[in-house]
């Protein structure tokens, strides 16, 4: 369960961004949350809601977009969505493939209030 450390990382990045953008408040943060990130969105949300109370981001709203994995076939090069393992290319029926999207969590946007 590393959702707490991930939520802590988010708070660190929010601090950095707030300073950098000279923002008064961060009203909202939007995440692109890859389905293959290895973390659970609901646990992450829970962790963030608890941790933020002790910080200057008490009022920051969290929005999570779930990102479906995109896999690139190593044989035919086509891109497909995979819902389960192992990845099976629907075009050439080759197994395997490289994840090109959906294995990470990105902070996508911030809504900030400026002075």
């Amino acid at each position, binding site marked *: 369960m590393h959702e707490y450390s991930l939520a802590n990382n988010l708070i660190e*990045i929010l601090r950095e961004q707030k300073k950098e953008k000279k923002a008064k408040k961060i009203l909202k943060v939007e995440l692109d949350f890859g389905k293959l990130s290895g973390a659970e969105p609901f646990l992450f949300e829970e962790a963030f809601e608890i941790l933020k109370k002790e910080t200057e981001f008490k009022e920051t709203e969290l929005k999570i977009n779930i990102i479906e994995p995109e896999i690139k076939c190593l044989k035919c090069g086509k891109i497909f969505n995979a819902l389960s393992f192992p990845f099976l290319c629907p075009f050439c029926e080759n197994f395997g493939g490289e994840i090109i999207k959906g294995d990470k969590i990105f902070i996508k946007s911030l*809504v900030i209030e400026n002075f």
Partner: protein
Amino acid sequence: MTKIIKEDISIPILKVNEEIAQELREFFNKRKIFVINIISSPGAGKTTFLEKLLSFFEKNKVFILVGDIETERDAKRIREKGGNSYQIVTGGTCHLEAIMIKKSISLIPENTEYLFIENVGNLVCPASYDLGEHLRIIMLSTPEGDDKLPKYPKAFLTGDVILINKIDLLPYLNFDIKKVEEEAKKIKENIKIFKISALKGDNIKEVAEFIKNKRKEYFKT
């Protein structure tokens, strides 16, 4: 007057870990230290494996970092076998992070050529954290059952080597080793698989040779 604006950014949540891991890899490359990160469930046999593996290396060229949630037991076991090891107690965290490795690098002796990192026993969280390693080993053991791969795909996807440990127990278990090998190849075609028994010492030498060759290849020495 206050203004509300939306700013698009694209920052990985593990940005800091990724930066430190990169920094570590550069440090290890400069010192020609080949780093191996070992990930498994608790009880898969990582410490026994390392104890056995050590006998195929010159002891003063190997350093071991052991991640554990709270005890110092595993590092002590390795030291008793004559290995250089240090325990990183994570204080409740279920995985090692690059920053924890960074804090320990001053302990690594001058002539070290191999650094083994025994991660915290867990197949989920450690998979997401790059520790600046050159080789990632995923270990599973036969009593855990033969359905680990589809359950923990991320670990196996990020791995370079799979060790199937405790093969000496195969006659007593319902473990389809062929199925596991086939599944592994489907998940990652070029993944290297070793069937070992850390307890009996089966195929440990082969793993040691493989690691030594990887270092040679990497540093072209």
